[in-house]
């Protein structure tokens, strides 16, 4: 697998998520940062220090592996204290530190147990405690929550974020789950096709995706073919609307794609004021926290999410385009 054009600056003390579909190169990038893989070209700097050719065991990184990679022949405390043992810290001292770290990840009572006696969630915490034992400069986590069930995963997201704030360590998390990235990160790095697609704070990525890949991967989106009719204004299916977000608009007369989030659209049984598209309802799903309405407009199906306005399958409706929230996309 090859990675291309990765130019990233990660601010100290922040939590960064590499997010992308499987096979996009995010794990490779993490392994290059950890020193488990060597890039064919390019440089990796930690502060002023060039790490590019430094072997993994001299890099000062703590890593949580996807499999957790806990040592089955050692007890939980010995696992956490492993790095200290390698450094030659005395047994009493390193076990004391292990207990401290296990308390930090809220696992005070499992120190003498075997790894095989722990649940998945517990193993996850032990792996984090172990990775933090040497006070590393970088805390790396490869899909740390993917093996946990949905409920536990959500709890761990909050806990991981709290832990990171308390320790104040620069952290990089690799995940395929964009919601997880949005929920935890200071900075999201969206990756696809072995390159970085967009870097920014979660809300920026969500509100102003720069291209179709990001708009499609992060959250859900409707894509509408459009044409620029005036500076800042596009025409979608014969309706003029303003574009306020996203990439710079190309020159007047050129074609482009605009994106609209399901929650930025609204369904009306009668023609609303402002730009709207006419269509037919194909499906209504009440999901409890929102109602999802699918509307066929021309040869396209739009997904609208919002308060129920009492429409049913087959109804003729108008889909109102947002006054803000229509996003212009590159490519």
């Amino acid at each position: 697998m090859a990675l291309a054009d990765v130019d990233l600056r990660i601010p100290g003390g922040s939590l960064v998520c590499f997010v992308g579909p499987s096979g996009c190169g995010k794990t490779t990038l993490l392994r290059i940062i950890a020193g488990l893989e060597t890039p064919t070209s390019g440089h990796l700097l930690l502060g002023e220090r060039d790490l590019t050719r430094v072997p993994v065991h001299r890099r000062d990184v703590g890593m949580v592996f996807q499999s957790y990679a806990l040592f089955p022949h050692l007890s939980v405390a010995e696992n956490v204290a492993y790095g200290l043992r390698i450094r030659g810290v005395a047994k009493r001292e390193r076990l004391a530190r292990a207990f401290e770290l296990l308390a930090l990840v809220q696992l005070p009572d499992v120190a003498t147990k075997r790894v095989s006696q722990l649940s998945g969630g517990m193993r996850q915490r032990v792996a984090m405690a172990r990775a933090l034992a040497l006070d590393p400069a970088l805390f790396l986590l490869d899909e740390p929550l993917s093996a946990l069930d949905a409920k536990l995963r959500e709890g761990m997201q909050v806990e991981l974020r709290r832990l990171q704030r308390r320790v104040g360590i620069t952290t990089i998390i690799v995940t395929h789950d964009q919601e997880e990235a949005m929920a935890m990160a200071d900075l999201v790095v969206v990756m696809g096709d072995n390159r970085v697609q967009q870097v920014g704070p979660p809300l920026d990525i969500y509100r102003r995706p720069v291209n179709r890949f990001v708009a499609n991967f992060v959250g859900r989106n409707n894509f509408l073919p459009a044409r620029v009719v005036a500076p800042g204004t596009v025409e979608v299916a014969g309706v003029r609307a303003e574009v306020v977000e996203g990439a710079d608009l190309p020159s007047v007369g050129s074609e482009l794609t605009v994106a609209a989030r399901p929650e930025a659209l609204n369904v009306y049984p009668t023609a609303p004021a402002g730009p709207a598209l006419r269509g037919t309802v194909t499906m209504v799903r009440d999901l409890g926290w929102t109602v999802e309405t699918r509307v066929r407009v021309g040869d396209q199906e739009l997904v609208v999410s919002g308060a129920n306005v009492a429409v049913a399958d087959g109804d003729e409706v108008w889909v109102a385009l947002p006054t803000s929230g229509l996003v212009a996309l590159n490519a």
Partner: protein
Amino acid sequence: MSTRPAASLAPMDTGASDHRGDGPWPHALLAWPTLALTLLFVVPLGIIAALGFFRRIQAGFFEVAFVTDNYARALDAFHLERLAVSVVLALVATLATLVVAVPFTFLLTRRPRARQVPYLVLVLASLSLSEVIVAFAWSLLLSRTSGISNLLVSLGLMDAAASWSPGLWAVLLAYVFIALPLAILSLYPTFSRLDQELPEAAGTMGAAPLVGFVTVVLPLVQRAVAATGALVFIFVLGAYVIPQTLGRPAQWTIPVHITDQAIMKNHLPLAASLAIVLLVASSLIALAIVAIGSGRLPRIALPGRAR
């Protein structure tokens, strides 16, 4: 990945209990290998053990009797010294084989599977060479007239061709050569199941590759290494063409003397009693190797580290 061993163990457990109480059918299936084992192993072994008590007839064969002379001779000072030499040689060869096979197999299993195949084919192919071919090939390769030393002389690395056989080193070399493919194939399954992320995790915690290997990989594979050691030990201890062809009389092991008694001196009862002594000794030592490998003995041997 950490859940994989548990997942693979579970079906094995249920599989074992499934066979219990399945009626006569599994027993009938077991009857055939039991019969084969009895006919091909237990009966011949019994004959050999009994043969050890028969009386030899000078310039003839033997007659059925019950004498203890043969076992007494098999355990006399000369033969015990030969037994000790055989065991030490086999132990040294086993250790040397493991020192090569363990890192080789570890590094091999870290490579992509497609790249492993040519090596495995090569290893399997070298298994097909019999001890006789290996012994004579090495005696040729180590000879002064047509051996490797001539190559080194022509490369300017040596002044004059030398004879490296027969001798201790020639015997050990050939032992390792025949045992190596066996050891690699025996270690391979365990090493290829080892989670690749475990040594990597050791690396992220400051362990240099060798330190990670010793502190993480070795403890996890020690049982497989011990079992392989026992296998190699027994295999090497049974070889007789190699010490006979590549060794001086000082390296002639018990199997060489068994051959000598059985074929040259026509003393079958002594050969049989020597074989039984060798079998008992090698079994005991192989069991000890496995026990040490599974960590049962060091705690007794090193009371200071016991907890």
